[in-house]
């Protein structure tokens, strides 16, 4: 049974990783949340919810919690909202839509500020999901920032990805084309009470047909729960079915690490005296911007690009 102490300890463990403490594994067992019997190979199913801001993601998550709780599954939610790039402050608003579950010990909701990380998740999201898993939750739902761009980061975290969109988001469908078909396991056209829902669903279905994978397209009205039971059915089937995301997740993770490493190296290079000399010459108008970029790229060992 997940009690209040588990909530507290999980919450504090998440704070630890949020605040940059990485060497905590050994200590976790001290916490009620992590002191239970080993979970073995059984682990939480992680559901990613992504899509543009205002599409109804949080409202839908609220409905999913309701549905999973009706089956007695425990649910942890990690909801990410954007930080201000200027002040680093944030108002984390997702919780409000799910707050009616705040009295339920089987539900744990944690808001996270993106802290200026790109990709739709916060730096600590992945660890937070892992901790919620270890703390014994059956299902972990991750809601992304929803900045409207493709948030591929979610692939590394979630087993099943739901892409939420709304009717008449004309260029929304375009945006989806640009990349979300790659990651979506389920498309949801939310706000089906609004005009244009059928048309949007038909568009999406056409798009899916062009691709390789079979992606169901559902319609929901998160506000009153219409269509949510169908979504739950599909999600449950995915949970019990084969792990289609594993391969994608591993590929993505490898690419991500490579990218992180490249960024790290680039930043280190920029700190060297050679790079500083190039930048000085740029400042003194001795080099054009393009020349400077080429010179620095050469130091990195990469090819100098034509622009």
């Amino acid at each position: 049974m997940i009690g209040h102490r588990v909530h507290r300890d999980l919450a504090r463990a998440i704070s630890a990783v949020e605040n940059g403490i990485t060497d905590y594994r050994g200590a976790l067992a001290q916490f009620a949340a992590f002191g239970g019997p080993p979970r073995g190979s059984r682990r939480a199913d992680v559901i990613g919810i992504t899509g543009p801001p205002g599409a109804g993601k949080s409202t839908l998550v609220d409905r999913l919690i309701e549905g999973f709780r009706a089956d007695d599954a425990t649910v942890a939610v990690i909801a990410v909202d954007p930080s201000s790039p200027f002040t680093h402050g944030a108002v984390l608003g997702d919780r409000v839509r799910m707050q009616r579950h705040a009295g339920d010990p089987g539900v744990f909701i944690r808001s996270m500020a993106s802290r200026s990380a790109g990709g739709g998740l916060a730096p600590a999201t992945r660890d937070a999901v892992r901790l919620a898993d270890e703390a014994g939750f059956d299902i972990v739902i991750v809601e992304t920032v929803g900045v409207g761009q493709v948030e591929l980061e979610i692939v590394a975290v979630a087993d099943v990805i739901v892409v939420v969109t709304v009717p008449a988001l004309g260029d929304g469908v375009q945006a989806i084309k640009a990349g979300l078909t790659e990651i979506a396991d389920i498309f949801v056209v939310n706000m089906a009470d609004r005009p244009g829902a059928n048309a949007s669903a038909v568009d999406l279905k056409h798009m899916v047909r062009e691709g390789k994978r079979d992606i169901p397209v559902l319609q929901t009205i998160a506000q009153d729960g219409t269509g949510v039971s169908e979504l739950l059915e599909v999600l449950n089937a995915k949970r019990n079915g084969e792990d289609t995301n594993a391969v994608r997740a591993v590929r993505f993770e490898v690419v991500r690490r490579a990218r992180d490493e490249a960024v790290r190296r680039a930043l280190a290079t920029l700190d060297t005296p050679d790079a500083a000399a190039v930048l000085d010459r740029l400042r003194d108008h001795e080099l054009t911007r393009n020349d400077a970029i080429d010179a620095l790229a050469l130091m990195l060992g990469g090819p100098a690009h034509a622009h």
Partner: protein
Amino acid sequence: MQTTEKTIADELREWEHQTLLPFTERRPESREVFRTQGGAALERVYTPAHVEDVDFARDIGFPGQFPYTRGPYPTMYRAQPWTMRQIAGFGTADDTNERFRFLIAQGQTGISTDFDMPTLMGYDSDDERSEGEVGREGVAIDSVDDMLDLYAGIDLEKISVSMTINPSAWILLAMYLVTAEERGFDRKKLSGTIQNDIIKEYIAQKEWVYPPRPAMRLVRDSITYSAEHLPRYNPVNVSGYHAREAGSTAIQEVAFTLAAGIAYVEEVVKAGIDVDDFAPRLSFFFVSQIDFLEEVAKFRAARRVWARVMKERFGAKKPESMRLRFHCQTAGVSCTAREPLNNIARTAIEALAAVCGGAQSLHTNGYDEALSIPSEPAMKIALRTQQILADEVGVIGTIDPLGGSYAIERLTTDIEKGCFDYFAEVDKRGGTIKCIEDNFFQMELADAAYDLHRRKEAGERHIVTVTKYRDESANPHVELHHVDEAASGRQLARLRKTKETRDAAAVQAALDEIVRVAKTDENIMPATIAAVKARATGGEIIKALRPVFGTYVETPVF
């Protein structure tokens, strides 16, 4: 005319160069821009050149005549002063009844009722959500038995009774009608108002039960029922007070209110009722803030805009459909907890603005407004303030005394324009209800409130004793309203008694009938009246309908 107008503009420029400039070089003005509370920049001085676009006959005219800028009636306060209507509400029905009688004895001419949070939100006093709140911020009313005691000994055919009630307004109206019936009053002679303005709840006051669309249906049903049965009753009091108190600008106050008015009219017209059959009974409610000039202009603008909307948008024919009547309350948010007696001065100035703006009815706040619900002595001074205005100051003798002032006419016309700009925006966004659902008004309001707060802190609009002339010595003590902690126990006993003495089966049958009606498009009033008569409680009715109508969860915006 062409030449004189040019001359005035020229003369103004000349005056600026010859008189103003040399003067300000020696003695500069204290600030570059002076703004109204709503943020509009004021001209240094207004002249006929500033009101060239204002036409006397078209825009100003005469009281009691389209576009009603100067007042809804041709005689205004020369016939009788506004209704002096102090709000009261605390504890049980008996406690509040005593306050009503006190105020009437002191010369008050109307009654206004404030309910406690559970009643306002549709919970009975014995609901667990009501704990600690029963009778605290208003009077607790669970069933018609409470209402009977609330207005006991008061002649409901003679005095008009207003009730500040919203999501559950239709139930309280039913209780009022049953109260009148059981006491033998003629429905046709009942005058009074239920606030019943659900739209501004989602924007500003935050009392809600059901989502906007089913809630609109309940408002519609009470309006159509009143149109048929209650010729002297105002079934809705479309309110800007709350948005302004929540931090809106003056323009937003009027624009949001009238946008709500438009939505109600559309809803009822859609139900097949002729606009002239109900529009005359629509009434309004505005604040009177501390910014005197802007407020007077605001009231005048509101009347003009509504008249034009009714005539041009809805094709109303009856003059009564076009004339806007309003209740007014001084601004609670302008009152301070520090040196509370200063609030008497603030309130008096705000009351004067309401009177110069032509209010039909007025509540003046107590000096203890920022501290607790009003004490009896505070209410007495507030009422006396109104009486002084009516009997000593002499502003009642001439109608719209500030009409024709260049400044006032300019501000009036600017507020009018601001309103029509908002209406265009709202129409573009799919109408008032859609704008509520999309948080449009809420976002506009949040931005205005934050902006005003920052302007205050930046010293642009000072608050005496808070941002200026702060006296750090102990705050002068005033005796406050004493919350009777035993009241909630008494109310629970009253509720128990009602529940024990009623016919439970009849109550259940009446509730079932309301639920049945709710699922159809029939008017919900008759079934509600029957249930109330059987002693169903407000909370029971609200609860029975939740599965039919759903619940509302706000998406807060900042």
